[in-house]
């Protein structure tokens, strides 16, 4: 019966009582705030001022300046926008593909299921990071290409989750009841089954945002992600690498930003998972 007696209130109540999840939620909120408040930063993130280069953190430059004299704090705020954008768009693409293919496979079964799931297996065979590297090497390294590629290589888990949910839900009486009142397949899939199958997808999407942010940072670090001068946490790290011995703030702060954000999404995702699972509800 478990998830049947789904109650929004109970879900939030449980989520709130989970300290780690709330810590994660706060970190996520802080990141959103950083991204939206970026235009109010005291300095222009692109303004080059050689006279101010490699300043250590001070009252004027909270987090110091980089080798071109740009304000690190402002660049981190704008970097949050990039990370947020990449995380959500990439996960959105992956989730959309995963839901559609998983729903098709789980609802219709038979050869459709076989074809879709073999395709999933094939996609999972590729180490996705190297696949992304190879594809980006051919395409222009732009932020949009990155988001699309991360999305196109990240939907397999969602497809499997959705398929599994559909397999069990399609046998339920309320689906049979929908068919007796004359509902079409489309109506049964989108109105009756999908809303009941969405909770594990929510969890996987939250965790997916974290890994998409990591992948984007890694790509930018390798120089094939977001291109300078646009600030991204990943490409800030690589500029900081050369001066690591003398100007630690150049790599330490973007690194911490990545760490804290990924941690926030992971904690929040795991908290949502626990709150949705009635077996875990009383265990804390």
């Amino acid at each position, binding site marked *: 019966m478990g998830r049947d007696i789904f109650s929004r209130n109970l879900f939030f109540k449980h989520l709130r009582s989970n300290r780690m999840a709330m810590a994660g939620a706060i970190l996520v909120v802080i990141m959103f705030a950083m991204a939206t408040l970026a235009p109010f930063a005291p300095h222009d993130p692109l303004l080059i001022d050689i006279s101010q280069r490699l300043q250590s953190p001070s009252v004027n430059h909270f987090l110091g300046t980089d080798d071109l004299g740009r304000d690190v704090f402002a660049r981190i705020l704008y970097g949050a926008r990039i990370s947020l954008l990449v995380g959500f768009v990439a996960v959105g693409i992956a989730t959309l593909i995963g839901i559609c293919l998983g729903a098709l496979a789980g609802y219709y079964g038979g050869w459709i299921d076989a074809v879709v799931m073999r395709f999933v297996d094939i996609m999972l065979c590729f180490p996705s990071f190297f696949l992304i590297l190879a594809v980006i090497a051919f395409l222009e390294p732009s932020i949009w290409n990155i988001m699309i590629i991360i999305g196109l290589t990240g939907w397999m888990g969602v497809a499997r989750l959705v398929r599994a949910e559909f397999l069990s839900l399609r046998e*339920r*009486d309320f689906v049979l009841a*929908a068919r007796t*009142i*004359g*509902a*079409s397949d489309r*109506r049964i899939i989108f109105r009756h089954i999908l*809303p*009941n199958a969405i909770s594990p997808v929510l969890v996987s999407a939250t965790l997916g945002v974290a890994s998409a942010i990591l992948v984007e940072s890694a790509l930018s670090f390798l120089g094939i992600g977001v291109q300078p001068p646009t600030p991204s946490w990943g490409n800030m790290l690589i500029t900081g690498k050369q001066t690591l011995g003398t100007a630690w703030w150049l790599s330490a702060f973007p690194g911490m930003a990545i760490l804290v954000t990924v941690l926030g999404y992971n904690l929040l995702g795991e908290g949502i998972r626990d709150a949705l699972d009635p077996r875990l509800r009383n265990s804390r």
Partner: protein
Amino acid sequence: MKPLLEVSSLSKSFQVKGPLGTGRKQLLAVDQVSLHLHQGETLGLVGESGCGKSTTGKLILRLIEPDSGSIRFDGSELSGMSQRQLRPLRREMQMVFQDPFSSLNPRLKVGELIAEPLQIHRLAKGAQLRSETIRLLKTVGLGEEHLDRLPHEFSGGQRQRIGIARALAVKPKLIVADEPVSALDLSIQAQVINLMRDIQQEFELTYLFIAHDLAVVQHISNRVAVMYLGRIVELAATDTIYRAPRHPYTEALLNAVPVPKPGKTRRPPLAGEIPSPLEPPSGCHFHPRCPYAKQVCREQRPELVDIGSGHLSACHFHAEVGRFRRS
């Protein structure tokens, strides 16, 4: 008068895999079932769990695909139709489900659940949709204040009422009620049965009423069919079947109905377990448990024949049945 529903030689078997997916077996869930229903009548379908009565109900509504046999409903043959062709006909025949906790989508509000059939068949929209939904809720004894609640906020009996309102929404001719009260408390059962009787009169409904409880069926049915291991073994008018059963299985079922007489000890009415439907006994499926069984019962399957004035029985010795009747 032509019957509203005429089912003949309906059969369905399922493939059952053994452990490790080896050793496939056939489970004949419904075996050559024939029955008919006239407009406005109620046919009770009784039998032990696993005898195929729910499957029969679902086959009639084509929720499960039959292997063979024909289903004629209101002049059209359903068995060859595609699901798409069936959809407009679904208006005419509805189902009430056994488990009121799993037959309502937990994410939809009651108002949405009841309005859905009206929207699908384009019977109402806008303000009319709302008033029609409220009217349906009132018909089943609920009210406007329940529109925005979710199914989990209701008790079993109330949920079953919601299920009935949903079935009624499209003004069907036939309702297949699949053990509609067996998941409910005894006190609630009577309420729901009475409700079903009231709406039957009001809307001239025809019921196929599936149950495993003879007492429940007796109250609502005009005729009763008894099933055993996928076959109909006896079919007759309700009072006939309760007064003078002509099949040993029916007799045994009636003997098992508890008698409200304190202190009276009773023999177990039936010897033995229900046989595995994977390996049903030869000949008459009932012979290992039957007090009347003779050699012929082991060898020959008894056909369901009319033994007088519409009373059908599938027993080689139907004339003898009655000797073991206790009242």
